[in-house]
């Protein structure tokens, strides 16, 4: 039972945020190596690594990279998703705060492989502390000739701009983020096959590669050590390592990088064990279905978690002990999605608000037994019928909570108060 550090390998090195120390630890050698390879060789290395998107969907990275047209008839862009808004997730924050050059190097390599001359890193407005670290590091990289015109004398140009958000979870959705970079409201576009993929028509209708901070931070190590090396870690379909942001009722909350396929209970131990008695885990951010304690005997990789009825998502790993009232907790979840719904489509905009109203009725003691099925019905109305995945994400956690904790809902409705609070000495959360 141990961490396996790829992204975090040098994170404790004092001064690794500076270019000088980063270079002493092999920094930017991957970029030099990549510039000596053909673009297709770089993409093939990423393919061999089996790297999948760490932003939530787990889409194979190389397919996006390879999907960018191989000619320069239009400008191409790299869009780094540093909006990190998924509740429970704080890995991109640490990757930027403590290892900024690793990310910048990954972005430049992605730019080279996809014939892009411009990259935007979209950092959420609240993240001014990581953004200032990124700013300093980008300035250093320009001074050293890793960014700008004719990088390291290779004839390759690449400019990297920071674009700050202004408070919106939905802007983490890739096409909403494109709108936000273009100066519009953060609302998404139609998805493939109804509209072209961003790799064909993204920012300003030009080919755009969109990857998460963690995904791009993996790239330097993959290029340095080879895709096969990366693929030798993890499981067959979930290669490499993954950072889990562990929070809630554990003794040592924080980010832990483990090999894909590590047993869930081992991660809990790494995080210092559960405070109190384990009730449930939400393994991949607020958008993924909740996993009750008796189903926690599972491995942490895309396939195993899916088989267990949940998802790896962003790796936002929230731990709940038995003082948590699931009904109240889910009311807070529903309120989050209602607040963040961008309003573009009816099932999500209206459905999320109805769910909050129903929860409020239950919490006020006026719930009816039919309310449980009504909630499930609304989930069905939203799931798969919304413009973007925020709608689906609003439905899945509620549905799973009713599946696993229906008795708590029934108790609350029948007695007008929480089952957990009746049992525990004190209550936690909600008002």
């Amino acid at each position, binding site marked *: 039972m141990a961490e396996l550090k790829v992204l975090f390998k040098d994170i404790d090195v004092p001064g690794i945020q500076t270019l000088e120390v980063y270079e002493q630890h092999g920094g930017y050698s991957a970029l030099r190596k990549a510039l000596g390879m053909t673009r297709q060789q770089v993409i093939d290395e990423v393919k061999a690594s089996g790297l999948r998107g760490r932003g939530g969907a787990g889409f194979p990275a190389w397919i996006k990279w390879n999907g960018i047209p191989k000619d320069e008839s239009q400008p191409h862009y790299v869009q780094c998703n540093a909006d990190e808004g998924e509740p429970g997730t704080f890995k991109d924050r640490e990757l930027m705060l403590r290892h900024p050059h690793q990310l910048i190097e990954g972005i430049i390599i992605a730019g080279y492989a996809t014939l892009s001359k411009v990259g935007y890193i979209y950092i959420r407005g609240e993240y001014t502390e990581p953004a200032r670290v990124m700013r300093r590091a980008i300035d250093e990289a320009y001074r050293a000739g890793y960014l700008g015109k004719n990088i390291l004398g290779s004839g390759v140009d690449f400019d990297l701009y*920071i674009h700050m958000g202004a408070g919106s979870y939905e802007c983490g959705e890739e096409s909403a983020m494109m709108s936000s970079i273009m100066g519009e409201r953060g609302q998404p576009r139609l998805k493939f096959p109804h509209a072209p993929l961003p790799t064909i028509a993204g920012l300003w209708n030009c080919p755009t590669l969109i990857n998460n901070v963690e995904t791009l931070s993996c790239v330097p190590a993959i290029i340095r050590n080879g895709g096969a090396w990366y693929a030798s870690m993890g499981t067959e379909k979930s290669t490499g390592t993954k950072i889990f942001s562990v929070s809630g009722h554990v003794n040592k909350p924080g980010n832990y990088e483990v090999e894909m396929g590590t047993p869930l209970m081992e991660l809990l131990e790494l995080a210092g064990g559960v405070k109190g008695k384990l009730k449930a885990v939400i393994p991949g951010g607020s958008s993924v279905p909740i996993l009750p304690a008796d189903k926690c005997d599972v491995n942490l990789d895309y396939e195993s978690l899916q088989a267990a009825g949940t998802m790896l998502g962003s790796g936002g790993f929230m731990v709940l002990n038995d003082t948590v009232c699931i009904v109240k907790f889910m009311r*807070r*979840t529903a309120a989050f999605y209602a607040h963040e719904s961008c309003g573009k489509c009816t099932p999500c905009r209206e459905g999320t608000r109805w769910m909050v109203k129903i929860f409020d009725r239950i919490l006020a003691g006026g719930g009816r037994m039919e309310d449980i099925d009504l909630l499930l019905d609304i989930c069905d109305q939203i799931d798969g019928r919304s413009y973007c995945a925020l709608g689906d994400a609003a439905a899945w956690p509620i549905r799973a909570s009713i599946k696993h904790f229906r008795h708590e809902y029934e108790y609350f409705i029948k007695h007008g108060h929480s089952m957990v609070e009746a049992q525990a000495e004190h209550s936690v959360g909600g008002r």
Partner: protein
Amino acid sequence: MSEAIRLSEYPRAKRIDERQPPELRFSERAVQELERIKRHYPNKRAAMLPALWIAQREYGGHLPPEALMEVAYRLGTSYAVVEGVATFYTMYNKRPVGRVMLEVCTNLTCSICGGYEILRHLEEKLGIRAGETTPDGQFTLVEVECLNDCGNAPVMQVGNRYFGRLTPEKVDALLEELKNSEEHTVVQLADTIVQCHLSESERQDIERALAKAQAGSGGQDGQNG
């Protein structure tokens, strides 16, 4: 306590007539910054978010209709377009707010780790409810969604900094500190965000341009955007 300012009750400023050229209030520095940032994108309309950040700083922490009008003018678009964007994002303040904003996370992890207790403590301490500003205009208290620093729950954002692992005692000490400090204000947050967009060479260019302008005409007021 009764004079607490409720955000939603604040009087609406009069609508602006788009046919009149707007009154321009951006400083020369702001004009220079916006000029540079516009070049990051293929068209100037894309500089909308940074332009609104500049405006929020220039107008003292929030965006009155005059500020939206000025942004519209400087980006060559209409008031309605700018208002549509500004009202979408929660960090643009559409109403006046206090000098310092206390943004307490009550999202999932924080909700089970004492976030609501911190919020209630602040409400009591400041004598206002979430969403309100203290009568002296010092503090605005808000409840916010996940700040994504859940490992340090409960967390609060104060301007350009996060404060984590909060306890009522820590919050009390922090309030005292904030009262006597120029740090972490609403205006400073907007400025920090603006500066993050500008590269080192752009920042140097701006300083040079400002020095030149000052040497030249003894200080312009930046009317030419």
